[in-house]
């Protein structure tokens, strides 16, 4: 506590996970963005599982690309929707690696959906985290597979019309339906960090144990494109989104005897 710090003397310096890349902090996400929480949960899990030395992290395009240098682990920013196959390729070539693929709802459920379905079906021993904020954030707020009915976005300016564009995509439900024994599938939310952290850590631990495909979708906010204040942002995550996207564990590997 006698270190020189450049903060006010009545505050503590932040305790950051070991697997954080300090050089890239503070990060570039918008104020109120959900990505920060999810990445934090991942970093803490990497630390607690002691796997920093063999973790490889992959991110997608869109706001997730801002995490390309977030962690003090080897990282790769892939093309849009192609993070899953890149991490799959790494893991298959070197099974010792703990491969984490990170993407948004566009990268995972739109352009990357074929890769997600197939990785899940093959029960790839990788961990996929998908941050669901119901829009394409970085490109300016277009409609996404998980946009809610009636939600206004730049490409659904009059509100999402379910008749024309279908129901919001239920990703973990789809993954759970096609994946195999030993898989772990869950949906967490940034409005409950303790639970989120539990799911995230289990998803990574499942890979450490070599069980099966691990997938966690996380409900998150995007106040910039939602154009909501703090209260409404939180309300949307906790209420509108959670009413449609059910939070919880959908598939948990059977415990070994």
């Amino acid at each position: 506590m006698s270190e020189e710090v450049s903060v006010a003397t009545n505050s503590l310096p932040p305790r950051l996970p070991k697997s954080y890349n300090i050089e890239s902090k503070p990060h570039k996400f918008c104020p109120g963005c959900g990505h920060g929480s999810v990445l934090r949960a991942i970093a803490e899990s990497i630390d607690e599982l002691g796997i920093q030395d063999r973790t490889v992290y992959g991110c997608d395009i869109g706001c997730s690309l801002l995490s390309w240098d977030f962690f003090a682990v080897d990282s790769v920013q892939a093309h849009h929707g192609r993070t899953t196959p890149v991490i799959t390729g790494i893991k298959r070539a070197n099974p010792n690696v703990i491969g984490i693929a990170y993407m948004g709802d566009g990268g995972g459920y739109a352009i990357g959906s074929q890769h997600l379905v197939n990785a899940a079906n093959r029960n790839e021993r990788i961990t996929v985290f998908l941050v669901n904020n119901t829009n394409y954030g970085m490109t300016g707020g277009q409609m996404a597979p998980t946009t809610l009915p009636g939600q206004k976005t730049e490409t659904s300016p009059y509100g999402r019309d379910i008749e024309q564009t279908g129901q919001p995509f239920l990703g973990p439900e789809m993954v759970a339906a096609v994946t195999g024994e030993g898989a772990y599938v869950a949906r967490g939310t940034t409005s409950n960090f303790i639970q989120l952290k539990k799911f995230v850590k289990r998803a990574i631990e499942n890979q450490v144990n070599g069980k099966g495909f691990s997938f966690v979708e996380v409900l998150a906010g995007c106040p910039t494109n939602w154009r909501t204040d703090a209260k409404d942002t939180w309300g949307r995550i906790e209420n509108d989104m959670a009413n449609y996207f059910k939070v919880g564990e959908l598939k948990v590997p059977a415990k070994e005897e």
Partner: protein
Amino acid sequence: MAEKPIQGEKRVFMTGNEVIAWATVAAQADVMYGYPITPQNEIMHYWTRLAPKYGKTFLQTEDELSAGFTTIGGVLAGRKCFTATAGPGNTLMQEPFSMAEMMRIPIVAIIQQRGGPSTATVIYSQQEVTLTTFGGNGEGHRIVYSPSNHQELFDYTIKSFNTAWKYRFPTFLLGDGYQAKMREPLVMYDPEERGIELIKPEVSLGNGMEKGHYNHLRNTFNTEEELYEIIMSMQEEYERIAPEIIEYQEYNCDDDLDVLIIAHGVVSRAAQEAVSKLRDEGYKVGHFRPITLRPFPEQELRATAQRAKKLLFVESAYGQMAKLVKEALFGLQLEAETLYRPGVGITSDEVIEKVKAISQQ
């Protein structure tokens, strides 16, 4: 029948993407299929807002492969359909574009070039020339327009639909991120009020019984010889119609030249300004601007290039336009210099500086 979006003539001041959206509506396009990618997104944003008012349709597809193939589908159904993309999206769309090339499907695609390769920048480049003119696994039987200002974005968007439907080759409007995002003035108009006939689309699939015969469309063939005949006849037709489609502009190219600047798209503006200033200082410099990159104005360029002591290729790429130029000039004994700035804008000052430098030698 929905009312016309533009009645009379309107002078407006708007971004390039908005101009294109209005132009597609003025061209009586029916459907846009697209996927988000910077810097074309606003075309979708404006289209989705205009669509319900003018009886148009939109679908944001799951990715660019789908956007390209749904556009093909819509065209086969006999509607004027288009898509818009950039960079990595353009790379993906080469698969559907190849199908359109082989099957002579008149799709229209707006390309707003950004840095490349891969994700690179979301901003600007002229690095999608190769991809847009000769992408996919074909022989480049496509039509590519390279506009340089907002009036042309409007005019050539309308022309793209007419060209595609008249000649039945996939047609591209090759813009860039600067043109997409900048604001400048132009005059919007209703093409029919100006005497421009809008070619009506034809149905390929969906009215077979009514027509009395069914269309069976394919893009697969059994033998080498079969394919050869098809490609050769496509090439013959392409060459035959090229003179009707080729467009270019020349600035101060009338007499003999010390330097001939060759540039296209938004860079042509810098070249024009440079020529104007250099002429005031007594330099014998001219500028040749291809407007169609495919088919390329080969004969026209050969004629002018031979009167120049030196050529100067200027582009925001590393020689992509130059490759087309060199092919056109093959066999001629010419000296050429280059001003390549991949992914970076080029100002008239830079062009002037380069012309002066190469004039000293």
